[in-house]
């Protein structure tokens, strides 16, 4: 079964090729069903490989399946091959599973769009790139997928490219990601320089054997971190993710919540022996960066009015948790949270898409209210997602978040306190979202502030919000079930219920930190986390449902403005940054190009002089030949020893 792993990325690739050439002819809804079908096939193939792997012993759970040699270049030899181990299979399972569900959802969501077939072609291409990223057996193949998902992200963010704002958001995502890609590339060069190979198996085994100097490992780890920070939207490179919400909502769910943005966490988890070999401050930095981003993004999410912006900042915040876990040495917890987050955040995004669909494209939560009456399925599933992300037991988010917080406590109580504060804020802003959207009175037909047209509200009143079609609600229900049960793959009660940890063991090279925290402390920490979550929910209910507390203290203007960072960066880039670019442009034009043009001009002038001898007069040439012959003769005669 393991040999069939190539089917997993090959199916989406085949779907992409068919759709890009014949998509228009297949049309709607055939193109969508085709794309969903190949993703379903891909998921089944992954499941087959998983069942095969699960039946093996721990030492046997790593296989490299090589298809063919891709780049033979001197010492560097890169194969198209797949590293099949518990980590990559775990990633593949939720990527193909959530991916197939989101494809199905998109059939309903993209109904009637002119670019229906194009959308699914891009979506399939994205899935191919994402699967190459996690399955590739070398850093270079991962990089191939890394750039592939970046390109697809660009294509899908600016999918409705006729709006200049969408096109700009796509460009912003692309350019910001380039900074991260630079880090990845430097890490790759350093890895090849050090190990003479880019294959994970060679690099990780050599690193585990302890043959790497600490300085080298630190350099590689830090550069990988730069790459991960770019892709996984951590501070300060998170700027592109909120803007990426310009894309269609299934794209936000698939790429900007469940899969692509987790690839930074995947990369750090994959390269865990190098982090273990690097200087002690590297994991500290990862942890502090993660918890800082988590708290920072959570404060912003508290004051957003666009439903997708709330979820976007929430994603940044949850990714911060995963970095906190990696930095605390809790790789299992990072992967665990990655999986549960994929389920509940995809669910929340798809739910928000359903709401937006029902509200005819309106994304402003101030216009929602009371939607529970119109959209029962969306409301029910959304509530499940809300309880999961808020950390209410026994929903999946509680287990994974608690695991991370326990390890954070193990590393430093300050990290734990900041993580807990983030959890309280998370519960708060998600409850706010639920309250504004589904609870209270309907506001869709109210007169809006700043609205000139008095008739507009009356016209809207005829358009009651509606529940979404089956193709959209079915994935919501499946994801809701997963968001409830996903936590049970890793229960902290005893060693034997930590199934995910045992399963992932071969990928972690015993670099998982051992908890020094006692059982009683763990229970206490979990209880505090639950109480914290409930406090967040309670305060939000008091503010947004009961109206007992004023909203203003919570919705600080500086939160709504994202701490003015986005604006400051834009101002800097527009002012001093732009002058800097212009200076480099001048340097390029005058110094670099000047050198090239200077050499060319010199040759040209010299040629002008030589050209005078080539005047076209045959007799001049003949004289030249004659004089030359005489000169040669004279030379030979004078040198002659006769």
């Amino acid at each position, binding site marked *: 079964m393991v040999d069939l792993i190539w089917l997993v990325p090959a199916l989406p690739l085949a779907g992409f090729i068919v759709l890009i050439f014949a998509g228009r002819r297949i049309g709607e809804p055939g193109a969508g069903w085709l794309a969903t079908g190949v993703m379903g096939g891909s998921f089944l193939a992954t499941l087959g490989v998983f069942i095969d792997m699960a039946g093996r012993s721990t030492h046997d759970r790593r296989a490299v399946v090589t298809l063919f040699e891709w780049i033979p270049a001197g010492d560097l030899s890169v194969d198209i091959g797949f590293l099949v181990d518990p980590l990559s299979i775990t990633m593949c399972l939720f990527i193909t599973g959530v991916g197939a569900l989101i494809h199905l959802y998109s059939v309903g969501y993209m109904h009637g769009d002119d670019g229906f077939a194009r959308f699914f072609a891009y979506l399939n291409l994205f899935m191919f790139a994402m699967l190459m990223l996690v399955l590739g057996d070398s850093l270079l193949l991962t990089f191939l997928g890394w750039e592939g998902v970046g390109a697809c992200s660009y294509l899908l963010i600016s999918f409705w490219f006729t709006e200049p704002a969408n096109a700009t958001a796509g460009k912003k995502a692309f350019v910001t990601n380039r900074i991260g890609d630079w880090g990845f590339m430097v890490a790759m060069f350093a890895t090849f320089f050090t190990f003479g190979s880019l294959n994970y198996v060679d690099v990780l085994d050599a690193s585990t054997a302890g043959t790497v100097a600490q300085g080298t490992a630190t350099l590689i780890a830090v550069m990988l971190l730069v790459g991960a920070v770019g892709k996984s939207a951590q501070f300060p490179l998170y700027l592109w993710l909120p803007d990426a919400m310009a894309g269609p909502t299934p794209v936000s769910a698939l790429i900007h919540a469940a899969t692509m943005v987790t690839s930074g966490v995947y990369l750090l988890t994959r390269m865990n022996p190098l982090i273990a070999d690097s200087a002690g401050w590297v994991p500290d930095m990862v942890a502090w960066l993660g918890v800082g981003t988590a708290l920072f993004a959570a404060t912003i999410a508290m004051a957003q009015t666009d439903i997708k912006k709330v979820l976007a900042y929430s994603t940044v915040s949850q990714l911060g948790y995963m970095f906190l876990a990696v930095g605390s040495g809790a790789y299992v917890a990072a992967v665990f949270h990655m999986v549960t987050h994929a389920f509940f955040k995809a669910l929340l995004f798809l739910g928000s898409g359903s709401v937006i669909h029902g509200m005819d494209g309106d994304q402003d939560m101030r216009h929602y209210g009371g939607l529970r009456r119109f959209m029962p399925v969306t409301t029910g599933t959304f509530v499940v997602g809300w309880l999961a992300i808020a950390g209410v037991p026994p929903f999946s988010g509680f287990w994974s978040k608690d695991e991370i917080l326990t390890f954070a406590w193990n590393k430093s109580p300050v990290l734990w306190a900041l993580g807990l504060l983030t959890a309280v804020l998370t519960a708060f802003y998600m409850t706010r979202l639920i309250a504004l959207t589904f609870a209270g009175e309907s506001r869709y037909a109210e007169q809006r502030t700043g609205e000139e047209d008095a008739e507009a509200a009356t016209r809207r009143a005829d358009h009651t919000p509606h529940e979404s079609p089956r193709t959209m609600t079915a994935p919501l229900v499946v994801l809701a079930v997963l968001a409830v049960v996903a936590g049970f793959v890793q229960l902290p009660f005893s060693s034997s219920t930590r199934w995910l940890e045992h399963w992932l063991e071969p990928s972690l090279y015993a670099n998982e930190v051992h908890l020094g925290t006692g059982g009683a402390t763990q229970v206490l920490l979990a209880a505090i986390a639950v109480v914290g979550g409930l406090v967040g929910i309670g305060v939000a209910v008091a503010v947004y449902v009961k109206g007992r507390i004023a909203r203003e203290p919570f919705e600080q203007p500086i939160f709504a403005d994202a701490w003015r960072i986005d604006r400051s960066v834009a101002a800097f880039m527009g002012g001093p940054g732009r002058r800097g670019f212009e200076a480099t442009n001048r340097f390029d034009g005058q110094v670099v190009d000047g050198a090239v043009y200077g050499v060319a001009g010199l040759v040209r002038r010299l040629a002008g002089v030589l050209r005078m001898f080539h*005047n*076209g*007069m*045959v*007799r001049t040439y003949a004289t030249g030949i*004659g004089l030359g012959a005489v000169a040669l003769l004279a030379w030979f005669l004078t040198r002659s020893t006769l």
Partner: protein
Amino acid sequence: MVVTTGWYLALGAALFSMGAVGLLVRRNPLVMFMCVELMLNAVNLTFVSLGAELGDLGGQLSVFFVLVVAAAEVVVGLAVIVAIMRRRSGATVDDLSVLGG
């Protein structure tokens, strides 16, 4: 009076000089062409004379090569000259300096 090899060499040198001077002073392409032929045949005469003097067949062999090259040259050269004359009758080689780079 015995005609020695020296006489033949002198004749060859005289013919070569005439050809060379003719090539340099005349402007009619056809005449210049004949001058080149004259020079080639002066060299041929020298080859044959020295070959006979030294008893070496190599001299006469070289003449064959020169004759073959000269024949090929005549074919191409005359064709070029005829083509030029058709287009611009009475043209001198100096007029054809436009062909220069």
